Structures are given as structure tokens and as C-alpha cells.
């Protein structure tokens, strides 16, 4: 009866037989099962960690973020507006797609290092480094064609009839000129760094 069955055994059943055999002490199947469960737990935990670190509360748990950029952002349209729809820190700073998100998270470990070093732990130190930090964000946004802005705003769905005169004239030519949101909308959520080196005609003082 046994032999009878094994002759009928197809590929799947043979694989099953293999899996039932002990590898050393445990069957390969059991190992796989354990691995599967561990994977779920790990992935779940990983995702939960990703989600937990993807909230505004998390970002402003560091005073470096809370006392500077957060306070300024509270004065702007993305924090308070007519409709009450908000954009939070991760909306603008953390990509939605997981592969980009992981890259951003790995970069973020740099922030932990500088937290420990106290690189920007006073307003003065923060202002001194601000141009560099803002520059990093501008560069990243330029490279992604302001992907995070476009997650919410899309030229295609903008009703130019509803927009202001200046917005219409700029938006309708922006695409042809290879411009992206951040080229024209710097400082949309925070105060700007000292802009002398970016545009000397835009700030007071002789150069």
C-alpha cells in the first residue's frame, strides 16, 4: 500500500516527503514554518516601527525639530488653512513608496548621530547649519521633481481658472522650462536660511 502510493506520488507530494524528512533534528518544513512566522513578526514589527517613526509626534520628539522648524511651520498654510487639511512632516520629508522610504530611513540614522553629537542643539547652532540642511532638502526635491509635493498637488488637476494671476502665468510655463515646485516655492513651510549665497539681490547688504 505504501509503495503503491509512492509510485503515484507527484511532484508536490514528493516535495512534501522531502520536507517531512528531518534536516538535522527538525524537518525542513518545520524550519520553513518557523521562518515564515518569524518573518511575519519581523516584517510586522519593521512596518510598525516604520509607521511609528512616520508621525509628526515622532519628529517633534526631538527638541531640535520641535523648537525650530515645527514652531515656524505652525504659522504656515500646511498647518492651518481654510479647509483644515494638513500636510505633516513626513508628508513632505518621507517618501511614500517603500523602496524610497527605506533609503530615507537609513539616511535618517545620520540625524540620530547628530542628535547625539549635539550638532544643532541650540537655536544658534541650528541657524548656523541651516543653509546646509535646507540645501540638502532642496537638492533631494530637485532630484525627485518634488515628488512629495506632487503626492498631494498635481498640475493636471489644478483649476487654473481658480488660481491667482501670478500663479497661472508661472504654472503654465513652468513645465516647459523644466522647473519643479521647489524652484519657486522655497520656504513654504519654514523660515529660510540666510539667502545671501543663493541670491545676493534678494537680501539686504552689499556683497
Amino acid at each position, binding site marked *: 500500500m505504501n509503495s503503491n502510493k509512492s509510485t503515484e506520488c507527484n511532484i508536490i507530494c514528493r516535495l512534501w516527503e522531502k520536507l517531512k524528512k528531518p534536516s538535522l533534528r527538525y524537518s525542513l518544513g518545520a524550519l520553513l514554518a518557523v521562518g515564515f512566522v518569524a518573518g511575519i513578526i519581523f516584517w510586522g514589527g519593521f512596518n510598525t516601527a516604520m509607521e511609528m517613526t512616520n508621525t509628526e509626534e515622532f519628529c517633534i520628539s526631538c527638541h531640535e525639530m520641535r523648537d525650530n522648524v515645527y514652531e515656524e511651520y505652525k504659522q*504656515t498654510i500646511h498647518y492651518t488653512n481654510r479647509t483644515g487639511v494638513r500636510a505633516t512632516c513626513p508628508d513632505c520629508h518621507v517618501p511614500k513608496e517603500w523602496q524610497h522610504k527605506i533609503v530615507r530611513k537609513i539616511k535618517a540614522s545620520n540625524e540620530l548621530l547628530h542628535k547625539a553629537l549635539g550638532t544643532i542643539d541650540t537655536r544658534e547652532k541650528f541657524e548656523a547649519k541651516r543653509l546646509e540642511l535646507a540645501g540638502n532638502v532642496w537638492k533631494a526635491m530637485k532630484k525627485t521633481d518634488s515628488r512629495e509635493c506632487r503626492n498631494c498637488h498635481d498640475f493636471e488637476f489644478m483649476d487654473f481658472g481658480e488660481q*491667482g494671476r501670478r500663479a497661472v502665468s*508661472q504654472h503654465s510655463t513652468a513645465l516647459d522650462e523644466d522647473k519643479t515646485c521647489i524652484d519657486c516655492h522655497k520656504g513654504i513651510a519654514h*523660515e529660510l536660511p*540666510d539667502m545671501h549665497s543663493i541670491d545676493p539681490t534678494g537680501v539686504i547688504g552689499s556683497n
Partner: protein
Amino acid sequence: MINKLSIIASITLGVLAVTTSLQTHSAEVESLRGASELDRNSSAPEHKRYAKDGRPIARDYVQQPPLIPHKIDNYRINLKSNKCLSCHSWKNYREAGATKISQTHFEDRDKHVLANVSARRYFCTQCHVPQVNAPALVENEFEPITAISGE
């Protein structure tokens, strides 16, 4: 003694006269916001909204700082950056399609021309203001100069 008494009497009379005249006056004087008791909150006026972006607004007299024909909500002007100049400076005006600041904005108070916008012209909203559509608070008979308003 008589001297002292007369001094006191004239002071009291004077004070009385002043307070009564003040009282009659305070009934006549009314602020533009309307009369309201000092110890009470006046009712908040209706919130006015700035107009949408529009065409430049005609000027009414020579040397008038032109009115701002667009919204300026959240435009920051401080020592680190000046949002207005990001469109109105001589370097940026073409791309922004804006009017460039005039030569006078480069002059210091002794009429020396500087290489960059002058400190006395840096805080733009000291002189340039956006408009809301509201009735005049005080009636007036101002007539714009026709030579520049073009009417």
C-alpha cells in the same frame, strides 16, 4: 490766609470747569470703530479678505508708492530673506514677470546710490500695501492727478 483760600477756590473751580468740558466733549467724540464703553469689549468687525491677484492698480499722485495688486499672505521679510525681492529684484523680475524696484530703492538718504537695495527701502510693506474691498472710513473729496491715473 485769604490768599490761600482764594488759591484753593480757584483750583477747584478750574478742575470743575475742565472736567465738565471734558464730559460734554466725550459725548461728541466717537472713534472710527464706533462708540463703546471702556470696560466692555467692542464687537469685532467683520474679517476682510485681501483681493485675489489682479492687474497693477493705477497711481493717484506722483511719488505714490504703488499699491500691491496681489496677495502677500505669509511673505516673510527679515534679515535673512525677503520674499518680495525674490520676484521684484533686478535679477529676478524678468523670470517672475514682475515690475522691478525703481532706482530710488537703491538710494540712501543722502542720495548715494548703493550696490544693493537700500536699508530704508528694505521693509517693503512700510510703504506698499495690499488692498481690501471696503467702504472708505471717512468721506473725502480726493481727486487723483489725471496726468498719471490716465483718466
